[in-house]
């Protein structure tokens, strides 16, 4: 059911010109910016890292706006009640949507890597190519589970899509997708440590440039499972609350 649901939502999102254009064009623009910045900073040897970082930023944007928009879209289409009335746990219905947003986010990662290779001649010399693929898959699934946690809170908010605008840059910044965490104030460390995006970005960076990939992958997976558990509990709670208050479609 999860696989079929995810496939259905991936197909649906992939047919949206808006989703596909945003997933492809915006990350490429950001990656271009990153390349010129890294070049200006005489860090040409880190261009692949910049391309991967920009791609991951695109994945996060896709999950963030997808998770916020998924609920809102169902609400606008009038299908949110039907989804919540399905004789399944809410998590089984919503998780495919959020995982699908992560999967469509891979367009961003693939686009920035292809763009870097074709336009700027960035060699795709990953130190651990196999680990990179595994880390990318884990990262996407983890972000999908994190998206579930976000989506469960968005059920109660009418303007969830507006809140998503606030969360894009903070996660990019704190997770170290382009800016190393060491360059940030020390107080951001504990916040970064509990975000799956931090460990996902770290795993991808270590697979790209070298380093212990698997511990980061394991922590990323562990946190994402916690997100799944909390997201599931939260979704059940807010669904019951929204039913009791009769605000599911209006929240």
């Amino acid at each position, binding site marked *: 059911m999860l696989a079929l649901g995810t496939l259905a939502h991936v197909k649906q999102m992939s047919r949206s*010109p*808006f989703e596909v*254009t*945003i997933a492809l*064009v*915006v990350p490429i*623009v*950001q990656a*271009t*910016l990153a390349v*010129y*910045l*890294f*070049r*200006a*900073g005489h*860090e040409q040897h880190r261009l692949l890292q910049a391309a991967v970082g920009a791609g991951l930023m695109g994945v996060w944007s896709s999950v963030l706006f997808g998770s916020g928009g998924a609920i809102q879209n169902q609400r606008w289409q009038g299908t949110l009640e039907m989804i919540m009335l399905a004789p399944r746990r809410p998590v089984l219905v919503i998780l495919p949507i959020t995982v699908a947003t992560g999967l469509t986010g891979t367009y961003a990662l693939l686009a920035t890597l292809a763009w870097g290779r074709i336009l700027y001649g960035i060699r795709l010399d990953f130190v651990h190519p196999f680990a990179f693929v595994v880390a990318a898959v884990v990262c996407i699934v983890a972000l999908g589970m994190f998206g579930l946690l976000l989506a469960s809170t968005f059920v109660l908010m009418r*303007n969830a899509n*507006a*809140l998503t*605008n*606030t969360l*894009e*840059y*903070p996660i*990019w*910044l704190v997770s170290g997708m*382009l*800016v*190393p965490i060491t*360059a*940030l104030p020390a107080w951001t460390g504990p916040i970064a440590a509990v975000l799956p995006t931090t460990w996902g970005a770290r795993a991808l960076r270590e697979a790209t440039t070298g380093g212990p990939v698997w511990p980061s992958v394991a922590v990323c997976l562990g946190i994402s499972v916690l997100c799944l558990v909390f997201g599931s509990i939260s979704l059940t709670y807010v669904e019951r609350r929204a039913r009791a208050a009769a605000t599911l479609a209006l929240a």
Partner: protein
Amino acid sequence: MKTLRLMTVGGVLAYRALFNWTRPAIFVGTLLVGPLFQLLFFAYLGRQLQVADDRFYIVGNAVLTATLAGVFGGTLAVGNERRYGTLGHVLLSPRSRTAVFLGRALPYAGNGLLIAVVTLSVSAALLGLRLPAAAIPGLLLAMAVGSLACAFFGLTLGALGLRFRDVWVISNVAVALLLLLTGVNVPSAALPGWMVDVGRFLPVTHAASAARDLAAGRGLAAAAPALGWEALVGLGYAILAAVLLKVFETESRRTASLETI
């Protein structure tokens, strides 16, 4: 005088009616906190790569944050009329639609200025940037001109909403391109010549340059040429928006596609 009243009062009414973020918390989160983190992201990236100093990023990005209200506001000003089914009523008005729509841009320019001022103040306090007191009026002027240019740029994109179904793609891509092409985050010297040339015809580029001159204590005289160019760019987009709105309105009436979403 009547036209001026139509532009200002009509613009404010439309702003209040079409503005989606009606709750203060969401207004603050989306339009004040979000841009602040955008600035911090690039300031820390710039610090880490040692491309330029904090002043370069703080002042440039503060001016750039006005694009959020300007570009998306301009798009909303036209797009939401269509979405809510009220576009036909606006276009049936016996008053000048050019004045109606140009007036729509004014509140968003004010909104953009508010965002820029707040972002500059908070980020300067957070990152420890000291600005000369004498530069404040000039900085306000630079941010105001930049915000107005952004709003007319947004209205130009919004005008495309009369012709194209999904104008949000255009506005999202435009905002991303402004990050790259205006020289706010990458110094012009590090960008290819064609990108710099394109950037000269975009809002923010000249306003950010003027603001940096002012923040460096070079005075209004030094910043005046860049401010003049920014005003010209804004005027250019106002004219372009008016022409596009007129052309697309005529075309939409001809093909009966006004309310097509």
